[in-house]
């Protein structure tokens, strides 16, 4: 399946992960079908969605930092391009900053990203970077948020338990990532990725992402509590989604006008 992103995206994207379809009775679908369903479930449920995200980052020493932001997503094309809008509320030094992503699903196409700094009234264009960079200083990576193309990995169904399909994902270009492979346990009933485990180049488990709580919202199974643990640094990030809504009819707010002054549907 799935590339981690989906998973995380899922989680991050707040639960836009939905079940792509109820579990198939009987025969086990092939791995490509599982991956595609999980991807669709993770990224493209409904035409749009929004949520309030609260992250708590806890270091090995127990010091915490938090992030609070609203995120709004709109699909340009099902299974294709998407647009994201993130409006920060906490901490104080990033308050009222807005961040906009035009995600391009095509292979080799980088996302377009903008950041608005209100104290300078400055619209900054952000260079597409290493997608395995921390997102806002948390243990989630940018790729966890913005998506990792299914084409980046090869997928193998390694186990089917009563509850999960377990898919092993191996990067096609291992030099571009810090893991050698990762496994995803996908709920057989709703295709929600429940746990992802990343293994380093020496084959040791070093990073996990878990869906700790899944709720049904407007008929869509939605991850509302997600936990990333970095086993090497001892740091973890817990992410809680609230005010989740789907199919709200978001207009075309993904442009400079609204970056400079987000509409109330984003700020509230």
């Amino acid at each position: 399946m799935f590339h981690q992103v989906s998973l995380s995206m899922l989680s991050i994207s707040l639960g836009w992960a939905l079940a792509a379809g109820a579990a198939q009775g009987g025969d086990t679908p092939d791995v490509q079908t599982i991956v595609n369903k999980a991807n669709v479930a993770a990224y493209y449920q409904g035409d749009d969605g929004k949520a309030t995200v609260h992250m708590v980052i806890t270091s090995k020493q127990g010091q915490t930092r938090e992030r609070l932001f609203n995120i709004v997503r709109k699909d340009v094309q099902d299974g294709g391009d998407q647009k994201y809008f993130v409006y920060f509320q906490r901490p104080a030094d990033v308050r009222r900053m807005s961040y906009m992503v035009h995600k391009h699903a095509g292979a080799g196409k980088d996302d377009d990203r903008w950041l608005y700094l209100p104290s300078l009234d400055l619209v900054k264009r952000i260079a597409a970077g290493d997608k395995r960079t921390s997102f806002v200083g948390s243990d989630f990576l940018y790729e966890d948020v913005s998506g990792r193309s299914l084409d980046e990995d090869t997928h193998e169904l390694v186990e089917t338990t009563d509850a999960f399909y377990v898919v092993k994902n191996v990067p096609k270009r291992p030099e571009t990532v810090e893991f050698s492979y990762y496994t995803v346990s996908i709920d057989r009933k709703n295709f929600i990725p429940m746990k992802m485990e990343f293994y380093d180049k020496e084959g040791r488990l070093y990073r996990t992402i878990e869906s700790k709580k899944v709720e049904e919202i407007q008929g869509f199974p939605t991850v509302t509590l997600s936990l990333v643990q970095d086993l090497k640094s001892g740091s973890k990030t817990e992410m809680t989604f609230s005010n989740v809504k789907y199919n709200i009819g978001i207009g075309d707010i993904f442009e400079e006008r609204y970056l400079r002054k987000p509409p109330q549907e984003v700020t509230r």
Partner: protein
Amino acid sequence: MRVADRKRSQKSAFGMGVVGAAVLFSAVFASLAPAQEEPNEPQEEKNPVREFFEKLDTEYHGFYETRIGTRLLDDPYQSKDLTIGEARYQFDLLSTRDWGDVKVKGDVYGDFVEEQAVFDLREANIFLRPTDAMDLKFGRQVLTWGTGDLIFINDLFPKDWVSFFIGRDTEYLKAPSDAVKVSLFSDAVNLDVVYTPEFDSDRYITGERLSYYNPILGRRAGEDDELDISRRREFFEEDETAIRLYRNISNYELALYGYWGYWKSPAGFTPTLTRATFPELYVYGASIRGTLGKGIANAEIGYYDSVDDRSGDDPLIANAEMRYLVGYTQEVARDFTAGVQYYVEQMLDYGDYQGSLFPGSPSRDEFRHVTSLRLTQLLMNQNLMLSLFTYYSPTDEDVYARPLVNYKASDRLMYEVGANVFFGDERHTFFNQFHDDTNIYMGVRYSF
């Protein structure tokens, strides 16, 4: 309200009292900060002021900050080694209503260098979105457009060069405008019009606090020979209009600009050479920004029409210029970003300028080339930032470097150490004239 306008006469016992109180206040808050961290439940702390404003449906935020910096070289034209020394409180109020937003943001600070207490109202504006095709913002506001990184061609909104050179937060490079901004939107193109009824100049270097090269004196000038300025204060007469016409094509951002106003820093002298002036200036320009390869490329151009000296033969008024900029930014490694820019100022009617120069005056080059390099490295979960921004002019043979280390000890507490380093070959060049102002500073900020 304008810091640069303030005269030392304002210093008073009252001022020093406020300074003392502010320092104490800010020191107490900074020391309390770690104690307020609750390890497992990061919640907004109780704040009676915030609770008061919440009853009025108004968000209250801000920070306390202490910042101190000193000159590293001896400056014969300044009596103080201190380049910055201040205790600052910023409040930021936002009320979001169905009909629009009201925002008020202001700084109160005690300034040890100029020995005064200052209130700097940074924003006081109302934002309205009356139709789907129009936004309006009127009042005091900070305005920015254009594509340069710390190089401005078509952004003729006021800058605070004093703050920039002494190590205040980058936020303070932009001085506010008292203006009306009307934005019109359509599928084809968007238009911003900014009207400023009374000219808002830069907060430029006057000789107070920072010395500069004065071409009339033929030497560097400091606190004892502060520039005498002929200001423009005629409401609705000495006004400014700036427009931007822009649209995106495949996420390439295209813009055209126009400006009708005045040189933002003094660019002329009265015939008696006793006062500096802001001659009239019109600017026309264009820019483009978008993805190129793995990074972001930008290009910008501007024609500076120096209306009062269109022939270029008046030695007292700046000539017309063309200004060109190209830039490229890329993340070259994880959490490490590099940005380069190449900027050229071309003086027009250069022969007329040379022919009209006073004997003995240092002559400007026809072309001034400037390169800039920005390197930014994030470490420790992006809580530690190492940054270096350097301007280098191969034609002036001078350098301005801005190293900065910024550490976020917690979500509320931030430490910063930086420097402003100027050097070069000749005393009068753009950056090297500030050589003796080279300084190092540090700051602590507690945000709430």
